[in-house]
């Protein structure tokens, strides 16, 4: 198992804030909109540097999405910022008609995704957003794993033409990817090569997968760990290549098991190479109040549950 260490923990939303500032410096067409959550979205540095390119919309997310679509018509590259819940479910029809169907170059940037939003509880902890967004034709869906990757992804989506959903989170998590990485949309990142099982993880679950990989190595299980930061378009070649080698799959995500990364992988495999698969995901329920750590444990989204899923799926492996 390749060794991953970290010296610092930071929130992925701060990676977004840093990436937005950098994207703004590189391209004066980049504009930002926020629905009364500047502090939560870490947009202050962008606003300080480019006050004329920032639009405070107030608590009016539907209007924000429509205005973002309109800004693209004049050649702007708008980044919208609010919580994941208010970035997707609240404004689904606005995104569907005015952004996705209208082929608008809007970057929907969504913080506080998933259970790790914590104490605010289920009203704010959306676990359905990946599914909602990936079902929209033409929408790119990205869920990076740490501060550095989120910063790099933010810069990358500014350079990409088309609607994007960028999902990140609230809590501080280890920084274990390179600071100077180039983010390639749609290209899976090989975290650890292995032979016994393929673990496909996204977002905060990538670090948990690494911890699980270390525990599995001590048990003599050689896990391949792949970071699927881009859920759509899915890196099908990377998934199929890995599965051809390992013959079993665990998917790990901070999302409902219905409609998320696991389903994308399962659909790909069902058609191309039916393979035993276990899901590490929320089992079709809402969340609740608690600390991020408590919630990830209770809802089965930590390294321990990934290890257990690996043990289950290896037993189901086809034997020739």
């Amino acid at each position: 198992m390749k060794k991953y260490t970290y010296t610092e923990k930071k929130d992925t939303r701060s990676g977004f804030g840093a990436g937005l500032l950098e994207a703004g410096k590189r391209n004066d067409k980049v504009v930002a909109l926020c629905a009364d959550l500047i502090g939560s979205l870490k947009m202050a540095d962008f606003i300080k540097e480019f006050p004329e390119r920032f639009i405070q919309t107030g608590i009016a997310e539907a209007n924000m999405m429509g205005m973002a679509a309109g800004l693209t018509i004049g050649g702007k590259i708008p980044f919208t910022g609010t919580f994941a819940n208010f970035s997707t479910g609240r404004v689904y029809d606005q995104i569907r008609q005015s952004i996705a169907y209208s082929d608008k170059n809007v970057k929907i940037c969504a913080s506080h995704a998933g259970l790790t939003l914590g104490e605010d509880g289920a009203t704010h902890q959306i676990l359905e957003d990946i599914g909602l967004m990936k079902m929209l034709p033409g929408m790119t869906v990205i869920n990076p794993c740490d501060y550095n990757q989120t910063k790099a992804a933010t810069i990358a989506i500014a350079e990409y033409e088309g609607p994007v959903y960028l999902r990140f989170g609230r809590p501080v998590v280890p920084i274990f990817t390179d600071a100077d990485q180039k983010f390639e949309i749609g290209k899976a990142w090989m975290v650890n090569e292995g032979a016994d099982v393929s673990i496909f993880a996204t977002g905060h679950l990538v670090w948990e997968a690494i911890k699980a990989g270390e525990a599995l190595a001590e048990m003599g299980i050689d896990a391949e760990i792949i970071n699927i930061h881009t859920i759509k378009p899915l890196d099908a070649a990377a998934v199929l290549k890995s599965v051809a080698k390992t013959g079993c799959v665990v998917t790990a995500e901070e999302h409902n098991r219905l409609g998320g990364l696991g389903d994308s992988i399962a659909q790909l495999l069902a058609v191309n190479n039916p393979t035993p698969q276990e899901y590490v995901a929320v089992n079709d329920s809402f969340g609740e109040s608690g600390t991020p750590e408590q919630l990830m444990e209770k809802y089965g989204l930590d390294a321990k549950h990934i290890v257990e899923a690996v043990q289950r799926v290896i037993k189901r492996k086809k034997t020739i």
Partner: protein
Amino acid sequence: MNKNVDELKQVASQVRRDIVRMVHGCQSGHPGGSLGCTDFLVALYFNIMKHDPDFKMDGIGEDLFFLSNGHISPVFYSVLAHSGYFDKAEMATFRKLNSRLQGHPTTHEHLPGVRIASGSLGQGLSVAIGAALAKKLNGDERLVFTLHGDGELQEGQIWEAAMFAPHNKVDNLISTVDVNGQQIDGPTAKILSLGDLHAKWTAFGWDVMTMNGNDMADVVKTLTEAKGRTGQGKPIMILMHTEMGAGVDFMMGSHKWHGVAPNDEQLAAALGQLEETLGDY
């Protein structure tokens, strides 16, 4: 390009013929609101707006129009075709398979002249404000126009946008509401009353004007005056009173022709009331 009132009336007669023929041709669509808003769209595209039928999505240096009540697509398509955005013959494909003239307007089929999909109501004002903000950022002094149905004002997003534009001094925007008092299920006053629209938009901070949307002279006069009131810190709202079905006597005065196509006899009766001025497609 800038036609006078008499010339505009000639264009409007042909556009109304196109509307009833398109809707008859596919036995589907929305003739009532389309006929009611014909004079407005004809005035916009043939007198009021600076625009280029050699279509470019960014519309820099041009006035832009956003149709928020996308169901009145027949009038939009006819005006675009007669303006030269695409061949008039394409109107025969309206609402048919593989057409660029979808039931509701879309950019997805790359029809020149359309900058946003509309149909799901209440979204066009926000889009127009975004486009108006982009014009300001680009130093582009041209204007943005919109059209909405009065029933559409029942959508909450309209009022989010209504609050935003005056607060942010989006004064390069001229919006219009088609006040015909009708929606699918009946009169707006019965379905969900809109109340005093003049007082509401004024209270939100808009510069509110009114006009008779079926009097071409009044439409041109009011829109011209509205252009002169831009750039003064307020978005402009024109409450445009129209008769649903205007121009075809048996389609007027009722919500029943909101989304119903004429049969062969009704088509003939309608065309008998509308002079063919520019040639049918």
